[in-house]
């Protein structure tokens, strides 16, 4: 049995995995017969550097992270963590008079962390899809989700682009706000899966063995991931085989957001 190092980073909507990975880890170890050392990491840059320096072998991460890490280290996707309802939305205050994304031209729109799939890239893509250039047509701000949310409530910003699931959860927690205080004016299609990726330095056959072992014990591993959740919003997730091509859409999102260096098509 081998000892693998596995880092978990920026898995949006699955942040708890960074905290309570115990069951997932034992499920993994049982499925593969190897041992896994876990590192919850807050910085995808650090993970990328660790992969490049070959001090970590597997990474659990999101689509946008995959794109940049792949570009930097040639890490390859191993298993997709398919989840229901992984998409983003543009939210405004119901009383703002804004009804269409095009109404946002010249207005203040907040997004989440730079490079976050569902809190930044995806909402920007949505705006672009509706004919609003997210780089030039609006006044954009990057801030943390909670700050953006409070700012929207106070009317400091006109719209907010964020993970739809998170937004619904937060709104439901705001019991003192009248029903219908916010409205979504656009939402995206479902995003590509989060994934477990493997460093380029791990021999292909070994990686495949690990993948097959995990897929072979899907149920236990999923149970491991969802074990500690209070609610069952992640129940229904699946482990799926994935291919790189599914992420080209995310690559184009980078270009659209003003960072063309991660877009294959421009690069080529």
């Amino acid at each position, binding site marked *: 049995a081998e000892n693998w190092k596995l880092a978990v980073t920026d898995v949006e909507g699955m942040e708890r995995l960074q905290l309570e990975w115990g069951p997932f880890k034992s499920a993994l170890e049982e499925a593969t017969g190897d041992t896994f050392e876990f590192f919850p990491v807050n910085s995808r*840059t650090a993970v990328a550097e660790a992969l490049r*320096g070959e001090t970590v072998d597997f990474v659990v991460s999101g689509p946008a992270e995959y794109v940049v890490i792949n570009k930097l280290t040639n890490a390859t996707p191993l298993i997709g963590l398919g989840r229901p309802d992984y998409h983003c939305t543009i939210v405004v205050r119901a009383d703002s008079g804004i009804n269409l994304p095009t109404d946002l031209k010249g207005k203040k729109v907040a997004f989440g962390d730079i490079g976050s799939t569902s809190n930044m890239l995806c909402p920007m893509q949505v705006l672009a899809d509706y004919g609003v250039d997210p780089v030039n047509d609006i006044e954009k701000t990057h801030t943390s989700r909670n700050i953006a949310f409070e*700012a929207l409530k*106070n009317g400091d910003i006109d719209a907010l682009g964020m993970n739809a699931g998170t937004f619904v959860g937060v709104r439901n927690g705001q019991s003192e706000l009248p029903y219908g205080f916010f409205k979504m004016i656009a939402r995206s299609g479902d995003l590509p899966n989060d994934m477990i990726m493997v460093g380029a330095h791990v021999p292909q056959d070994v990686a495949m063995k690990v993948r097959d072992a995990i897929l072979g014990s899907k149920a236990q591993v999923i149970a491991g991931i969802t074990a500690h959740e209070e609610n069952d919003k992640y129940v229904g997730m699946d482990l799926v085989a994935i291919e790189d091509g599914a992420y080209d859409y995310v690559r184009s999102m980078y270009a659209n957001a003003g960072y063309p260096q991660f877009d294959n098509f421009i690069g080529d």
Partner: protein
Amino acid sequence: MTDLSPARLERPSAVSFLGYTLGLVIVFWCLAGAGFSIDKVMSSPPRFADFASRAFPPNMDPQVLARLGWKMVETLQIAVAGAVIGVILSVPIALVAARGLIAGPAVNQIVRTLLGFIRAVPEIAWALVFVVAVGLGPFAGMLAIVVDTIGFCGRFFADDMEGTDKGPAESLTATGARKIDVVACATIPAAMPAFISTGLFALEKAVRSSTILGLVGAGGIGIELKVGFDLFDYPTAMTVILMIAVVVIAIEQLSGWARIRIIGDQQ
């Protein structure tokens, strides 16, 4: 003759002996827990060279420099405003926090505990609080810097004042001066070099923690740095770091100059 000399060490009490031992054990346990390893350090150079090669040379594109320079000005503006207000507010707070100065032990304890709380709350939480309070923008960032500065300077100013020579203060007390007058005339002049050192460090700290300004939508250089790192644009990040370094070193020079003037040559 030798028997005249006092013992080299006062025999420590059982309790303090236990205390020292425990302290040592804890430190070693901590070192072990941190996975201290010389091997790892030794094997790093090649990987490190690769990393460094991607950061050099810094991005010196004039357009980028101009943009970053402008952001730096913005940052400095808010940092100076926040630090100046914070330092000014810290003085009275430190006066009541310092033991044996103007307030009793109970008050000292309460104020120091409050300052501890202020420091325990992370920047992101202060940013959130002030966005809720005054809305997104530079003002929220400035307030966060003010609070941060108070947590830092309040404590250090108090400690600095506690450490001063008590002689002049006693003689002024003997004139019948109020405590506040004694502090103003004897304690603060004695602590002045330390105040300058701490106060200008607070300014430097405000500039460095300008990510907070990014969070509250106040622009600033912090967000540029974050973008640089998140998108692996190390040369640009390097440029930002160099700019911050210039500011930090300039503040350091200012501090040294002011302190030398006040300390004097004491011959």
